[in-house]
């Protein structure tokens, strides 16, 4: 269990700059691990460490290249001469709605209703460029303006809600919070009803399976094991 923290000799060290300070770190670390290697014990801007939560969204550039780049710090390996930081928090104002207010009405664009400022999008595409998931953010913004809920759902589905798109929008738009309203609208009202599920919920409420489960709960271990071993398994493929 005790591991020495010595650096293997053959590993190459890279120069990076963490909030302006120079450090040398071994090649191969992610941005997040590199910060820890430099001695930072992270509290903010760290979450699932697997690319799902968006907590570690980060903006970086290179020493001699002013172009800003975007990534998740837990998913991006460091490169020579990176200028690094992480974004601990970014303020956002959300529209007020209840899921019941999202029910779409014919001839009315609910998304423009909630977020009228989306009409001021002038297509600079900064949102798309800043997305660490490589989503086509501007496309789903256009779809929202058109009231195409399905397309907003489709194009924004892999959004981690990290907020970089809002941070970079010159118009102060907040694509990621608009998109969750669109997706909830779609999930709650536009997705087709799966009747078999509702039927089963009703059957359970009516107690249809109570006896059967009751029997299983009382069943001696040996019988349960036998039943399990003999159970029919639906083909997986």
């Amino acid at each position, binding site marked *: *269990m005790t*591991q020495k*923290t010595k*650096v*293997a000799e*053959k590993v190459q060290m890279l120069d990076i700059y963490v909030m302006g300070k120079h450090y040398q770190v*071994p090649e*191969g*670390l*992610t941005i997040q*691990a590199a910060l*820890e*290697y430099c*001695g*930072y*014990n*992270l*509290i*903010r801007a*760290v*979450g*699932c460490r*697997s*690319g*799902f*939560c968006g*907590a570690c969204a980060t903006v970086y550039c290179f020493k001699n290249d002013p172009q800003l780049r975007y990534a998740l710090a837990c*998913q*991006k*390996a460091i490169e020579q001469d990176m200028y690094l930081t992480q974004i601990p928090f970014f303020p956002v104002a959300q529209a*007020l709605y209840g*899921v019941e207010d999202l029910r779409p009405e014919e001839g009315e664009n609910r998304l423009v209703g909630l977020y009228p400022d989306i009409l001021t999008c002038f297509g600079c595409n900064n949102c798309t460029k800043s997305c660490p*998931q490589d989503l086509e953010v501007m496309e789903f913004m256009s779809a929202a303006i058109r009231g195409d809920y399905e397309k907003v759902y489709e194009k924004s589905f892999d959004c981690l*809600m990290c907020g970089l798109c809002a941070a970079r929008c010159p118009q102060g738009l907040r694509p990621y919070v608009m998109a969750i309203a669109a*997706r*909830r609208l*779609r*999930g*709650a009202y536009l*997705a*087709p*009803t*799966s009747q078999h*599920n*509702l039927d*089963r*919920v009703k059957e*359970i409420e009516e107690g249809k*399976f109570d006896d059967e489960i009751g029997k*299983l*709960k009382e069943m001696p*271990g040996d019988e349960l*094991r036998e*039943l*399990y*071993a003999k*159970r029919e398994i*639906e083909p*997986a*493929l």
Partner: protein
Amino acid sequence: MPYPASMEESKRKMEETRAKRLEKGLASRVSAEEREVLVNKFHPDFIKEQFRELRVGPNKGSRTPLEIADLLEGNSRIDPDKIDLAGIDYDVDVLVIGCGGAGGSAALLAEENGASVLISSKLRLGDANTIGAQAGTQACDRANDSPAIHYLDVMGGGHYVNVPELVEALVTDSPDVIRWLESLGVNWDKEPDNSYHELSGGGASRRRMHSCRDYTGLEEMRVVRDEIRQRNMHGRKIDWLEFEPAIELIMDDQGQVAGAILMNLETRRMRIVRAKAVVTATGGLGRTHIQGFPTTNHYGATADGLVLAYRVGCPIVHMDTMQYHPTGAAFPPQILGFLVTEKVRTLGAELVNCDGEQFIHPLEARDTEASAEIRECKERGKGVTTPTGEVGVWLDSPMIEIRRGEGTIRRELPAMVRQFGRFNIDITKEPMLVYPTLHYQNGGIVIKADASTPVPGLFAAGECEGGVHGRNRLIGNSTLDLFVFGRRAGRAAAKWAKEVELGKLTLEHIRKWQREIKEAGLEEMPVSPMLLPNYANQERPVPGFQPLGQISPYTPFGDRAIRWI
């Protein structure tokens, strides 16, 4: 070429046997006897020297992993003599500690049932293991399925030690959980005939895994989180504090749980919350790196809820059993231990050794799959070694496209495609190298079917509770557990809060605890709850520096070329 030359030969062998393996079909299933032998011999739960008996507390004498025993027997972070409980900062009906799927749904249901709710979240609202759950949520809602069939799968998967009442709750609530989440706006995958798109999974005898691409937990969590925010904005009585975990529970002089002490992680100031009921929904413990395993878990998964509950006298169950997910990434090193969803095997990918042989049916229960991989690598020497010294087996993902048609992977597994793509591995054409990774705590706080614990006023939901899954949880039952017991805990806590009369607040239980560990000679144990792992490189600290988290033996860069993150 994404894989280094040293791994190429084995990869080529695996590709050469693919046609033959497709023709032959999946390996035969292991029998119950074979499973017991395999698991007992190779599963990490059975390595004796990695466990010890607890020396204090309600589970004195219970076999517990070393890392967790250290935390459970730890010193409190507070000195009760220096805390004035009269200065109450929040006075609420229900305090929910933790805000993943379980805490989030508990908070919503408590609020709906008339309680005022405060959520204490260690990281941001919703930064939890829930968000990384990929494969799906089990629910027995198809015509050929039933709660009884689901029940049997859960019991068998758990080696029959599960608590029957909890399993009953799990399976009978399952279809309604799917319905409830959809009513809040979760977008489940559907078939052209409008039924749910449902896949099979390890240990499941029916196709009952409901998914949202391979971002199921993310979709569930962001909808629940949005609902909490919206209710708050509407002035309803639900609020939260981020980066303010609970560091100790408060009791009253009647022996009831009556609130908690929170600590702001940045300022290290404390806040006192009086609550008529407390729900612990603190999730798992992967960041304790049991037995040195890498983990799929989020940064805050440090078993805090277990420690809090244990100190108010609440027993825990099945703490000697952990789930090692069979497919954690073993390459590239930047994502070591990272979860490769079981959905990959559900869709038709096989596990293959360095000689291109399939060595286990890909849809056995997780303990069985993990044990088979360990056997393959450790006993039979048929693992593939990476340049950084990790060992793993191939997960032959390109088979999915052959079995289910081109485009399946991109449609069903966009997260996996994206994440391996970031390291130049195209999983539609290349396999992944995998090895077991610490994934889930099977056991936890003892609860009844309404999520109440043996300690009055304390409720528990989600991964931190135990008994639901026995000694091995099945795929898709964790996200189900969150919402089943989260909702039950929220309802029960709100009801309890209406009825209870709180007495005088006290920290006497902490004094008693400190006396107990002193008597047992355990004063040198670390402080707990752990709160966060400390991965910071410890070179040259200022003398006397007290780090917030426990210094982890796992640095991002250890004696092997690259350590897990």
